[in-house]
């Protein structure tokens, strides 16, 4: 049986909850070993690897990113930003028994040092089915403002 939209949404919602509640170490285990976390500048790029992105994280860089956020040694994450994200507008683009591609919208509000900031994004998940349940093979976060000036983001989108 193909992966259903309901299964995908349940998994994506779990990821969102982990990120808002700072469960970054647990979050790492949601990815495949070759998985990528990508925040592109150019949402239309064919091959993000050949382009400059805001983030193009393999397993090592994701681990580094989490270590940095939890270390207490990064002044921009000390104290950390609080975030609330809401995902919706899910659409299954492709699905079969072992993998699927889901697109959705993400609205995120950030609060840090008395300042509220907002980031909207189109997010695409490439999920794969493993013995250990669904995993992220690719998460691509296309910020609505990706080609404009951002403010710094010391958390995980």
């Amino acid at each position, binding site marked *: 049986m193909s992966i259903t939209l309901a299964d995908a949404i349940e998994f994506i919602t779990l990821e969102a909850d982990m990120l808002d509640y700072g469960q970054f170490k647990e979050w790492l285990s949601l990815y495949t070993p070759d998985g990528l976390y990508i925040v592109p500048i150019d949402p239309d790029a064919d091959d993000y*690897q050949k382009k*400059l*992105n*805001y*983030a193009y994280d393999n397993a090592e860089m994701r681990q580094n990113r989490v270590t*940095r956020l939890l*270390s207490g040694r990064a002044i921009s994450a000390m104290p950390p930003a609080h975030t609330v994200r809401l995902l919706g507008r899910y659409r299954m683009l492709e699905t079969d028994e072992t993998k699927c591609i889901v697109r959705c919208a993400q609205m995120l509000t950030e609060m840090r040092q008395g300042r509220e900031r907002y980031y909207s994004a189109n997010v695409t998940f490439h999920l794969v089915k493993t013995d250990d349940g669904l995993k992220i093979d690719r998460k691509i976060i296309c910020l609505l403002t990706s080609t404009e000036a951002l403010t*710094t983001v*010391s958390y995980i989108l």
Partner: protein
Amino acid sequence: MTLLPDPASLVNEDRADGSIYNNALLYDMEMDRIFKRNWIWVAHRSDLPDPGSFITTFVGQHPVIVSRDRKGEVHVLLNRCRHRGATVCEHKSGKAASFVCPYHGWAYGQDGALRAVPQPKGYGDSLDKSKLPLVSLRVEDYNGMIFATFNADIMPLDEWLGPAKIWIDLFMKQGAGWPIKTMGEHKFTFPGNWKIQLENTTDAYHFPIVHKSFLDSVDNQTQNIFDFVEGDGFVEDLGNGHSVMVMIPELVDLEENLDAPIPERFQKLAEALSKDYPPEKVRQIVRAVGGSGFNLNLYPNVACSMAFFRVLRPLAVDETEIRHIAIGMDGGPEIANEVRLRLHEHFQGPLGFGTPDDSEAWDRVQRGALAGYNIDILLNRGLEHEAKRESGLLFSDVTAETGMRAAYRQWLTDMTCETAIEEAAQ
């Protein structure tokens, strides 16, 4: 009439008043006396690869089009139709045979000349098209760096850059024999004054404190390379507000020390390159990929910063836009350019492991400097042992604030310039 602040009372050789970051009147004076009257960096040659290529950007607060015409000449044109003032181009970059105002269809050439207006009869004989081109700024370039200015009387760019030119040449060796090209940029704003960023590019003192978490994320060898605050580096005042901060002296000239062993973090790249290039060339490419060991601060708005261009744009007294422009080898091996992109993403930009912490520090300077009255910002680090080279240029240790003193010396010259004051009064 509002009394303007007196710049001379705000900045001394070794200190400045905290209000330089938050006085809105002073900010307006800076826009007139600094950003209107100096050479302002607008583009790199590779941003305009072909005849007809253009980008849009800003000179101070003024929107401009930087355009390469059919003959290859570069023009910097105010992005303002001569009819009713609308911007004639809102694309960030592209290729265009002409710029047509969307409001009434006035059409301008790549050099800014007014070519045609719809229904010209309505003007009778009164419309002299030759008198109504897009307003052109003065443009000069050095080694691919294109600058523009409103000031017809300023010294040639060559003279303005002076001893900084040698450092620009050294910086461009990151092309490893190929020309340098820009490869995209990170753009972000921070809620603070532009001078806080200007200072930071020549501040090595903060590095091991602010960038602890970045240093935690790299291998031991790289940590050692970045352990430079007690090393043999230096800061040198290059005149006209420019300065260079050499953090890693071994990485000043990337064509030297080619016999040095390839760092661990570049072993994989070196192996891959070895399939296509002889050993000597592999070493040159790998050294270039690692970036330069210095920051060249070109007053007032651009820096050649280790491995990228850092460009600042003041948006308001307490808001500044910063671009970190990635660079690479134009025609060089793609795998090497990809490594450069990943290195850039690692430290730079709003999601990098370095920039957010810098931004946090600047944000705090802006907010903290509002506390109290008449409290100085200190600029005296390294002053005691500051010395003069044979060339006459001042230098001190790598963590010295010599570069900031250089910038503020030029700031004071600009802000108290009689011609500038008269011009602003008109």
